[in-house]
């Protein structure tokens, strides 16, 4: 059987650096292929080769050939492939051209010159297919993240492409919205025979749906195989696979269902001890915090206490008020009512310079904090701004992420290194409370493990840490407390073993397999060690 898309001996390089080398990949009809690999190995580049955005939008030199249905398309720019290859980028909002859902769905067809009657019919069909018919007249900017992602997928489906290319479609979504989007994609694969090429960091979400995995290894080559055999020794693997490897299950379970069946063979394990309740001093006490944006109540009478040495994780669906709460706690975000007390001061009433020494905050886009040409300059500016002895920021950075070349431009750093730099700059002012808004965006498993270590370190120094995240696996690793927000109100809070394990959408994979009180693979590893000894 001939593939829909064939990549033949693809190589791609920037001046010095080789990104892809001798890549052969064939996508069959009705197949979902997952592109995985560590951050920065060239996953997006591989997708770009298929869409034609690489090298036209990225620079660099491409060699090799791309065949679609046996015809070479490597010389064609993306616009000439538009009727064959549909592409949805990481941030759907950035790629929207029109302003209402309906017009956005029609845009691609307008460009291709589709007949008006056909356009009308396909728009209606697509609205139904993706379950977004009730959103048809809505302004794209007022949609939630999951809805935007579905509209973006719909807007490329209307041109009936053969191949759909998706770059991290669920990275910004909460677990439930991510499941919705993935279910939609799976339905397209199964019902329409669409070929899907999809890159994703959070493998635990996608692996059950993938037919094959293309693992971009560090040296520029790509290994393509069945998920089971790729995951057996892949450097990136979801917790489920880690569990399977640990318990030496064969074949490796890819779904929670398979793993549950295998789990019966595990020896009796001593359940993990609940962490002893530590005495700790409250550093930040918030009472009845209410934040209102226009007519919308973003945060409604939230009580929250952050204690020294404790890591609190804030969860909740997109738009549930996490960011509003974080900015209000920092003092910049205006609150309607309520009180916040940090060491006897209310950060809302302090000058910005004073605020920084009370509460540190790393915003969602850490790059907003950076503006200088090199890491060294950024560090020096941070020392000066915080009136700290010179070298303070640099020292912090070396602790958080050792071995960063200080001559590098901050934009050339990896996602995780840039986050560490922003963290170091914020920490230079020595705030006792640290707030992190969505720090796990764009981090792979290794990056997240590193971040978890950093967060644990900061807590061990006696800082109170609050971080907002959608990533349940990360939350399970770092949290001492979990607070779940919905519609701006706290719906549950307490230790992760209770809050995460109880919730069907927030339960980590290990909990789903072994049941509470298990949270993370490391606990199972320790218990197994105990048994095997």
């Amino acid at each position, binding site marked *: 059987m001939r593939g829909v898309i064939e990549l033949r001996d693809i190589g791609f390089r920037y001046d010095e650096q080789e990104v892809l080398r001798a890549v052969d990949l064939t996508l069959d009809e009705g197949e979902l292929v997952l592109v995985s690999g560590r951050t920065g190995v060239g996953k997006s580049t591989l997708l770009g080769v298929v869409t034609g955005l690489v090298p036209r939008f990225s620079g660099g030199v491409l060699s090799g050939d791309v065949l679609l249905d046996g015809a070479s398309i490597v010389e064609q720019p993306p616009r000439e492939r538009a009727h064959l290859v549909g592409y949805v980028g990481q941030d759907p909002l950035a790629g929207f051209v029109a302003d209402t859902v309906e017009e956005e769905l029609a845009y691609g067809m307008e460009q291709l010159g589709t007949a008006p009657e056909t356009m009308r019919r396909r728009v209606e069909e697509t609205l139904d297919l993706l379950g977004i018919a009730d959103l048809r007249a809505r302004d794209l900017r007022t949609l939630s993240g999951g809805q935007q992602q579905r509209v973006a997928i719909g807007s490329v489906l209307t041109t009936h492409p053969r191949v759909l290319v998706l770059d991290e479609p669920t990275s910004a979504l909460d677990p439930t919205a991510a499941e919705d989007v993935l279910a939609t994609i799976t339905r397209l694969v199964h019902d329409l025979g669409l070929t899907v090429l999809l890159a994703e960091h959070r493998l635990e979400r996608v692996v059950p749906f993938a037919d094959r995995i293309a693992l971009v290894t560090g040296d520029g080559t790509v290994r393509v195989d069945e998920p089971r055999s790729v995951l057996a020794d892949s450097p990136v693997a979801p917790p489920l696979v880690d569990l399977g490897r640990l318990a030496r299950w064969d074949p490796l379970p890819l779904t929670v269902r398979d793993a549950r069946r295998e789990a019966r063979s595990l020896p009796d394990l001593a359940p993990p001890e609940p962490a002893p309740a530590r005495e700790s001093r409250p550093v930040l006490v918030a009472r009845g915090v209410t934040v209102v944006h226009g007519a919308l109540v973003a945060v409604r009478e939230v009580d929250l206490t952050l204690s020294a040495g404790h890591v609190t994780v804030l969860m909740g669906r997109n738009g549930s008020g996490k960011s509003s709460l974080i900015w209000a706690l920092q003092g910049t975000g205006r609150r309607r009512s309520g009180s916040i007390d940090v060491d006897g001061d209310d950060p809302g009433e302090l000058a910005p310079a004073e605020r920084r020494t009370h509460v540190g905050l790393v915003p969602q886009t850490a790059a907003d904090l950076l503006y200088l040409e090199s890491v060294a300059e950024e560090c020096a500016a941070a020392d000066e701004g915080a*009136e700290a002895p010179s070298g303070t920021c640099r020292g912090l950075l070396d602790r958080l992420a050792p071995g960063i070349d200080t001559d590098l431009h901050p934009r050339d750093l990896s996602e995780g290194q840039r986050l560490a730099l922003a963290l170091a700059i914020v920490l230079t002012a020595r705030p006792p409370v640290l707030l992190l808004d969505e720090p796990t965006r764009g981090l792979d498993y290794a990056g997240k493990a590193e971040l978890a270590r950093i967060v644990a370190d900061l807590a061990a120094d006696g800082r109170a840490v609050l971080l907002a995240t959608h990533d349940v696996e990360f939350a399970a690793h770092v949290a001492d407390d979990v607070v779940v927000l919905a519609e701006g109100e706290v719906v549950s809070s307490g230790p992760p073993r209770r809050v995460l394990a109880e919730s069907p959408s927030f339960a980590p994979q290990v909990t789903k397999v072994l049941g509470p009180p298990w949270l993370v693979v490391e606990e199972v590893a320790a218990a197994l060690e105990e048994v095997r000894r």
Partner: protein
Amino acid sequence: MWGLPRDLHPIAWWTWAIGLAAAASFTTNPLLLLLVMGSATVVVMARRSGHPFGRSFRLYALLALVTVVMRVVFRLVFGGQEVGHVLLDLPEVPLPDWAAGVRLLGPVTSEALLAGLYDGLRLAAIILCVGAANSLANPKRLLASVPPALYEIGTALVVAVTIFPQLADSARRVRAAQALRGGATSGVGRLRRFLVPVLEDALERSLALAAGMDTRGYGRSGGASRGERSTTGALLLLALTGICVGTYAWLDPTAPRVLALPMLAAGAVVAVLGLISAGRRVHRTRYRPDPWRTPELVTVGIGLAVAVLGWYVGHAQVAVAYPGVDTMPYLSPLALVVGVLGTVPAAATPVPSSALTGREVPA
């Protein structure tokens, strides 16, 4: 009576509004100006769309008010005519010789105040009419209804309109983020802290948008042959030359007259031909284009009628159109018609469909 709810063609709304604005520019009669402003407001209240820009009318109203106040205050501060009824005798601020001709303060006459008020009202009426068009018709749909040959330019404008709110968003975000760290708080350093991240963000967004549009087929070459392309190019080049020569000759009285208006007209005709030729090779279609039916014709007709009648009043009934500041302004029957005719679209057009769906509170 005008059928089911639907959005009126944006060009119809803009023609109507420009007609009203033109009529307003032909008069300083405050009664007539108030009537024109009133009819624009009535139509906006009855037919504005539910989209965000539909709420912009209040801003324009505010701007109009500020304009009137500014005009009057300027008359006060920089003095007016010396003659007339003195309302308030302010002392004049003596100015050095080099500022001769400029007066600061001095006696305030009712005539000066009224002249300022009338002038301000005229500007306010024009601003309000533009505001009315903006809140009645989606400016993006207006740009999208350009002829196919100009489609690329239209899209560029649409994108520019979209980018502005995003730029404001990213500016707000960066300002908040930069307050989280210490550092330069004045001068160039501060500007740099703010500008660098905003510009980086804007650049990245533009690239993402360009990539998005490209992968969706924007700017496909279509099936034009080499010959067709060169024909179009030649036509447009010829038109440009004709228009340039024509304009030059028109402005230079010594040039032969045959090169003036005839040349300009010929250039324009060739330009239209070129655009048609360019449009023919564009294989693009419109999804649910706004139809052009009776309500559109009525609206455009009303706009034109108001403009023409306003012009007529301005020329034939000078006493009505430009009342003196010493007499009570009054309206002739014809002027009254000019003032109220503009309200007709409030009843003669269908209810905009977006007024029904757009009212939802954003999630």
